[in-house]
């Protein structure tokens, strides 16, 4: 029987909108018995991520007969 533990230490993604920019842990436990006439192998994977995001939004909406101006600025920080 062989046990392998793989831990994912670094998992970063620049696109915060993918909601995966937090740390991810992955643990695999693997009982594997090769060489037998009957075998079963299985593993379980756990992938967990917690992300905190702060978004500051400023909106300006100006409408007149001659001019319509609208601007929305978002600043979003995720960790």
């Amino acid at each position, binding site marked *: 029987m062989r046990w392998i533990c*793989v*831990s994912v230490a670094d998992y970063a993604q620049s696109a915060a*909108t993918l909601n995966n920019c937090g740390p991810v842990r992955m643990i695999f436990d693997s009982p594997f018995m090769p060489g037998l006439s009957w075998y079963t192998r299985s593993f379980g994977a756990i*992938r967990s991520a917690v*992300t905190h995001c702060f978004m500051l939004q400023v909106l300006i*909406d100006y409408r007149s007969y001659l001019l319509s101006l609208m601007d929305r600025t978002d600043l979003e920080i995720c960790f």
Partner: protein
Amino acid sequence: MQKRVGFIAVVSMLAVLLALPSWGWQGRMAGLGDAAGLVADESDFLIHPAAIATGKGFNAYGHYRLTYEKTKNWEYSAIVPMMGRIYPFTADGRLWKHEGQLGAALGLGPGRLGVFFDYTTASGKYTGAEVYEGQFGPGYENFELENKLDNFALKAIYGLPVGPVNVGAELGLAYVKEEQKNLMPTEMLVNYPWGAEDYPEYNLLPYMIPFDSKYWEANAKVSAAGKTGPVSYMFTLRGGLPFATDNEYVHLVEYNGFWAEGKVKGFNVAGNLWMRFAVSDNISLPFVVSTGFKKITRDGAGFSSAPSTIEYEHEAKDIFVTVGGGAEMTPASGTRLAAGLYYNYLKSDQNMQFMDTFDPS
């Protein structure tokens, strides 16, 4: 013939968008996240069905949003402490997402009815490389990741005043087709699951757990909106259930591999509360809190070319909590200023289990 049908469809859509009163998503210009609730907007009834009761006349709506996401330096390292080996992976890629919506709202009986058709399609492609020392010498691998989504949704919204409160409901039906895939072309590996077990150099599961799912989803919302003194509020509960589902996991190694077929199960629930405190005639303080939980399980069973039997299950659970608030000011007619700060808590857990059993009897 197909070109002619396409031309007629495009002209019809333009006619709807240009000739009828249009809906401008006034406060909802696309950003990383939509700070919904910060400013009052006609589109609020898409979140709180009760808000549709306040409209008048016949209105047609059209909306299209294009999102491009560039992902750079998407990295992870598989570390095998017992062997002192590190397998560093890095990937780059992009995702295109198109979201379209057509709909209309009109008075019906004591309230108002809205009917909307949404279509969302997304396609992501990523390429990566891995340079590692390895247990038996150095190695280099290229890999590719793909994800696709097609979501067709039809929903009916109805809201009406009941005394001092507006109440509303929404019923929706969606057809969802989504796929995730990982490949190592040099090794001719498609959706290889056993790398997580004993070949860390082939383990792409931290990037993308593969599946190919199709399912229908029934969604419902109930909602109330009203005003108590200087405070106006909108509150909505929603839930959804998949049905008539189909899921596949296909793994290939050159001409071998396995094929497992199963179902998609799960549910999603969420609640959304918006409050707005009127400080004066032209200043209000909005406050938003929403939370939701989604669980989706994909499973499958089948046979490999070994031959052996394969069973697998992939469960994904997502929780979100959003809390936000700010201020909205109307200093003059036609002018509006708003600023808000939102906090999002997102928790994602995925569990996957594979079992491969060979029985010569």
